[in-house]
C-alpha cells in the first residue's frame, strides 16, 4: 500500500499532467510550425480575423467613429487614434466635442484638447493633466455663443487662443455630436494606419507559442506550463527510481 505522501505526489503528478496537456500540445504544434516557417511561408500569410485583430488592439471598420467639421472635413476616432480626413494627427481618448473657431478646429476628447488648422495640421495637443479639469464631458455653447468646456470639475470658458480657462457658472447648451458615415476610402486609410498590412501568421503563431496572444494571463499560463513540465519530469523520475529500487529489493529478497 502506498504511503499518504507518495499517494499525494502521484495524484499531483496525474493532475498536473492533465492540466498542462492542452498547453503542451499547443507548444509542440506551434513549435513545429515555427521551426519550418520559411518553407511553409508563414511570414507571407496575413491574418485579418476580428478576434485576432482585437487581441492586438487592432479594431475593425465598425469601431471607427466619424464626425463632419467645417466644409468637407471629417474627424475620425479609432482606438486612441484621431484622424483628419483619414490622416492620423494625434493620440487621445473618445471624441466628446468639436468646435470650429475662427482660426482653428478644437477636438475635445475625454482626456485632451487638440487644436488643428483648417488643413488638418496639428497645432497643439493639450492633455488635461495641464488643464484645470481632469475629464472632459462635452463642449457646449454659452448664452453669448462662446464655447464652454463641460467637465467633471465644472464648466470653463476658454480664451481666444484656448490657452487659459476661467470657471463659468452661467447657462449653456450642448448639442449631441452627429456621427457621419465615412467613405470607404477614408475607412481604408484609417484601418491601414491602425492595422498596417494585417498580421502575419508567423507572428500569431509565435505569440500563441509564448502565450503573449492572450496577454498577461496567456504568458503566465505558458510559464506555469513550463514549471509544470519541470515538476512532471522530476516527479516522474522520482517515481521511476522508487519503483526501480523497490524492484531491486524484491529481487534481492527472492
Amino acid at each position: 500500500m502506498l504511503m499518504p505522501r507518495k499517494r499525494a505526489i502521484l495524484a499531483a503528478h496525474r493532475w498536473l499532467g492533465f492540466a498542462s496537456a492542452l498547453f503542451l500540445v499547443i507548444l509542440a504544434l506551434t513549435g513545429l510550425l515555427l521551426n519550418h516557417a520559411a518553407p511553409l511561408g508563414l511570414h507571407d500569410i496575413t491574418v485579418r480575423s476580428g478576434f485576432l485583430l482585437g487581441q492586438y488592439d487592432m479594431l475593425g471598420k465598425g469601431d471607427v467613429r466619424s464626425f463632419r467639421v467645417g466644409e468637407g472635413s471629417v474627424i475620425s476616432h479609432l482606438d486612441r487614434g484621431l484622424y483628419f480626413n483619414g490622416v492620423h494627427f494625434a493620440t487621445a481618448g473618445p471624441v466628446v466635442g468639436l468646435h470650429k473657431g475662427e482660426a482653428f478646429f478644437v477636438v475635445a476628447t475625454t482626456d485632451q484638447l487638440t487644436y488643428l488648422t483648417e488643413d488638418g495640421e496639428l497645432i497643439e495637443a493639450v492633455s488635461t493633466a495641464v488643464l484645470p479639469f481632469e475629464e472632459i464631458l462635452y463642449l457646449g455653447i454659452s448664452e453669448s455663443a462662446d464655447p464652454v468646456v463641460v467637465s467633471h470639475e465644472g464648466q470653463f470658458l476658454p480664451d481666444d487662443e484656448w490657452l487659459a480657462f476661467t470657471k463659468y457658472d452661467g447657462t449653456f447648451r450642448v448639442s449631441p455630436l452627429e456621427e457621419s458615415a465615412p467613405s470607404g476610402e477614408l475607412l481604408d486609410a484609417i484601418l491601414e494606419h491602425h492595422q498596417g498590412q494585417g498580421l502575419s501568421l508567423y507572428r500569431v503563431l509565435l505569440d500563441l507559442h509564448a502565450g503573449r496572444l492572450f496577454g498577461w494571463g496567456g504568458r503566465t499560463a505558458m510559464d506555469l506550463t513550463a514549471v509544470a513540465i519541470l515538476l512532471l519530469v522530476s516527479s516522474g523520475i522520482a517515481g521511476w527510481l522508487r519503483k526501480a529500487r523497490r524492484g531491486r529489493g524484491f529481487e534481492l529478497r527472492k
Partner: protein
Amino acid sequence: MANFWTGLVIILALAGGVLMPLAGAQVLLEPEKFIEENFEEEPEQKVLWLKKDIKAEIADLLGHPYKGLRIRYWMHEDRTAWVLEEIGKVQPITAGFVVEEDAIVKMQVLVYREVHGWEVRYPFFTDQFKGLGMKKGRLSKKIDGISGATLSSNALIRLSKLALYLDDKVSQ
C-alpha cells in the same frame, strides 16, 4: 508538501507585486503639480509658436520633426518650465524641465509608459541634468546613460536639449 505550495504562492505573489507596477502608464507626478512645485509665485502660461526655421532647428535637435505648431510653457521672471514628450522605444515619456539662466534647474520624469527603462525616473539619473547648459547644439556635460535603458536615456537627453533651446528662444 504543504511547505512547497506555500513557497510557490509566496514567490508568485512577490513576482506579481514587482511586475504589476511596470504595466501601463505610471503617472509619477501630475504636470500641474510639477509646475506648482517649481515656482514660488504663480507663473504665466504662454505659448511659443513654431515658425518654419524653429521647426527645422527642433527637427535637428530631436532627429525627427516635432508634431505641432505651438508649445505651451510657464514663465515667471527668468525661470521657464516645459512639459515635453518624446518616444523612448514605442511609448512617449512625459518629462518636466525647469530652466533658468540658460541652465536646467530641474528635470523630472512625470509619466512613464514604457515597460523597460523605468530606471530613468530615479534621481541618480535625473540629477545629472542639474546645471546643464547647451553650446552649439551640444550639452555642456556628458550624461551617463543607463544600460538597459539606453533608448529612454537618449529620449530624455534629446528633450533636455529641446528645453534649453526653447528657453533660449523665449528668453531672447
